[in-house]
């Protein structure tokens, strides 16, 4: 007599034991988390790239900020840029103002659309 014979009745009971029905919403839950899961806004490599760039920027900023006399050096640098760029000269400021206002006015102009654009 084998072990299987010993447990013939139990095996029969196990074979006849119906599986429990899963709750009604389970299938929908599974599908929502798999097949119908919304696509992520960014791909993993994009997230990695952005993360790396942010980390590098923070590291560079920290490097600059932690240098000796960082504040004084920064003020000095800004002063030199302003001076070398001629931003203290009245003439330069005037030309800059003219250029900026012209750019603004041009951006406000509307041009009639061409036939080629309309046909698209």
């Amino acid at each position, binding site marked *: 007599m084998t*072990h299987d014979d010993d447990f013939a009745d*139990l095996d029969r*009971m196990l*074979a006849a034991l119906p599986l*429990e029905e899963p709750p009604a919403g*389970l299938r929908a839950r*599974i*599908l929502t988390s*798999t097949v119908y899961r919304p696509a992520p806004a960014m791909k993993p490599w994009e997230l990695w790239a952005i993360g790396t760039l942010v980390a590098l920027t923070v590291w560079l900023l920290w490097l600059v900020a932690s240098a000796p006399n960082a504040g004084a050096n920064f003020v000095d640098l800004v002063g030199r840029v302003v001076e070398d760029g001629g931003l203290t000269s009245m003439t330069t400021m005037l030309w800059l103002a003219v250029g900026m206002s012209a750019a603004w006015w041009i951006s406000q102009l509307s041009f009639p659309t061409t036939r080629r654009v309309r046909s698209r």
Partner: protein
Amino acid sequence: MPAALAVDPPVAAPVVDDQALIAAVLAGRSEAFEEIVTRYQRAVYNLAVRTLRDSIEAQDATQEAFFKAYRALHTFRPGAKFSTWIFTICYRLCCDKLSKRKRLSGDELPDRADPSAGPELLAERNDEALRLRAAIDALPEKYRAVVTLYHLQGKQYEEIATVLNLPLGTVKTHLFRAKEQLRKALSQ
């Protein structure tokens, strides 16, 4: 007992085999995964609910198992049995949940029977299926898992050993002892 108890009625005579469905999902037709869910959700849920003895946690484990399987489908070895793979994922998740539960409350010691489903309770349950389920629930965790998989997969001892990550001999021993305990519990 049949060699492999049907996991779900469609499994017995599938129109498209699991390998073809998996290939379809991997080819971008993700809706083929719906058929895989239809075939296996019941069996996976039953494995989880028998292992965890908690319907809410079992639902979470089932959902998580399918989610993990879906994400790792490209790693599925062609020629392997999908049922064994998904059962393995689910069983590991259940073990994690049991470990967490044990850490939090000291509940579910592996070799201890559940005192809530003792002979008194079993005696009150006349229905054979209910009594058998209660007796399975009263088994220690390691025996319960073997019996549940034996119920789900039939006499495929190698598959059971793979899911539980146990040697074949241990599976047979556990199953023998589990059956002994079940018979004893049912005869009371």
